[in-house]
């Protein structure tokens, strides 16, 4: 392939020459690549891309600002809270401040914050704040016992299909998000919350017009 071509003086063009074939052979042949090599490189490249995407997705973390990922939550019977309807979409709650709490009945730290969440709900439920409890990876019977045990009355429902948790990249439970009237995340807590902490955030957001 590296030998020199005949001298420059006969560059005649032949009409019947299959140009495409020569082009491909010249392109890849010139790079010293065979078809098999190209396929192998393509397959390896595909693997690298898939791996990179996987690593990128695994490294995503909980949102702390910006638009809150939308979701639809089907509420447990008897736990409509002040959400207004079931199933309830987060985007339907624009204009209201939303407290979104992920929990599970098997979760010990969740039990620590349960009373505080309910107390904060009682304080703000008529002030334009909607509380949504998302029951993550839980069995309904155990979840209902938990809700009864802590006297919880705000809107609660299961994370059906385990779709909402991954959307917020939750690393476990409990996790609490406060979303402002425009649907932006304003507060993220990856451990139990307290009445004082939550009240501070809610007061600030309710003052904003």
């Amino acid at each position: 392939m590296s030998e020199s071509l005949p001298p420059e003086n006969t560059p005649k063009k032949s009409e019947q020459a299959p140009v495409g074939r020569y082009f491909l052979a010249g392109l890849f042949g010139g790079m010293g690549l065979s078809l098999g090599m190209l396929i192998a490189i393509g397959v390896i490249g595909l693997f690298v891309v898939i791996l990179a995407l996987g690593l990128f997705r695994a490294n995503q973390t909980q949102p702390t600002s910006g638009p809150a990922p939308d979701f639809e939550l089907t509420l447990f019977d008897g736990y409509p809270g002040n959400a207004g309807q079931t199933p309830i979409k987060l985007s339907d709650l624009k204009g209201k401040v939303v407290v979104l709490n992920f929990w599970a009945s098997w979760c010990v730290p969740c039990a620590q914050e349960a009373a505080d969440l309910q107390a904060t709900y009682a304080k703000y439920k008529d002030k334009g704040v909607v509380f949504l409890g998302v029951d993550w990876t839980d069995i309904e019977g155990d979840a209902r016992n938990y809700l009864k045990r802590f006297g919880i009355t705000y809107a609660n429902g299961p994370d059906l299909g385990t779709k909402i948790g991954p959307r917020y990249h939750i690393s476990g439970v409990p996790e609490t998000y406060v979303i402002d009237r425009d649907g932006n995340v304003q507060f993220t807590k990856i451990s139990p919350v307290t009445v004082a902490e939550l009240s501070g955030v809610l007061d600030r957001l309710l003052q904003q017009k």
Partner: protein
Amino acid sequence: MMKRTFKIALFVFWVVAVLLLIALTSVALAQTGTPPPTKQDVTADDVNRIAKQMYCPVCENEPLDACRTAACQQWRAQIGQMLSEGQSEQQIKDYFVARYGARVLAQPPAQGISLLLYVLPIVGLIVGVIFLVWLLRRLRARGTAAPVATPAPPSGDEYIDRVEQDLKNF
């Protein structure tokens, strides 16, 4: 000679394909073929037989029968409860998939993008066999017919002749 190699390769291909099909269907049958225990007393073995085909999201890489978290204990209790109600293995799995998504199954369902997991190996096998047959035929053809080089009729153009010759070695 060439035809015989091709026939042998084709035969091997069909044998492998049929064996693969049998293996796949038997796996599918084993999944659905176990009769539901109708007895009231469900043992841990009954529960674990189903649990080991599942993963709860709390234990990312540990099957449900081995995971010791409280969440997975609840899941196993739920399986036991459903078994004692006379529900079948498939009904129980369907319940968990509906609640928590297909990710709870150790063996992903053959639908959507997961279908690729089942189709790609077979496609790869077929492509591989075709490639092998092609390679064998080419090698054989080259081995026997190498000296019988048939030069292309000169086109009257030095460049074209040169490219034709290079293509032959490509």
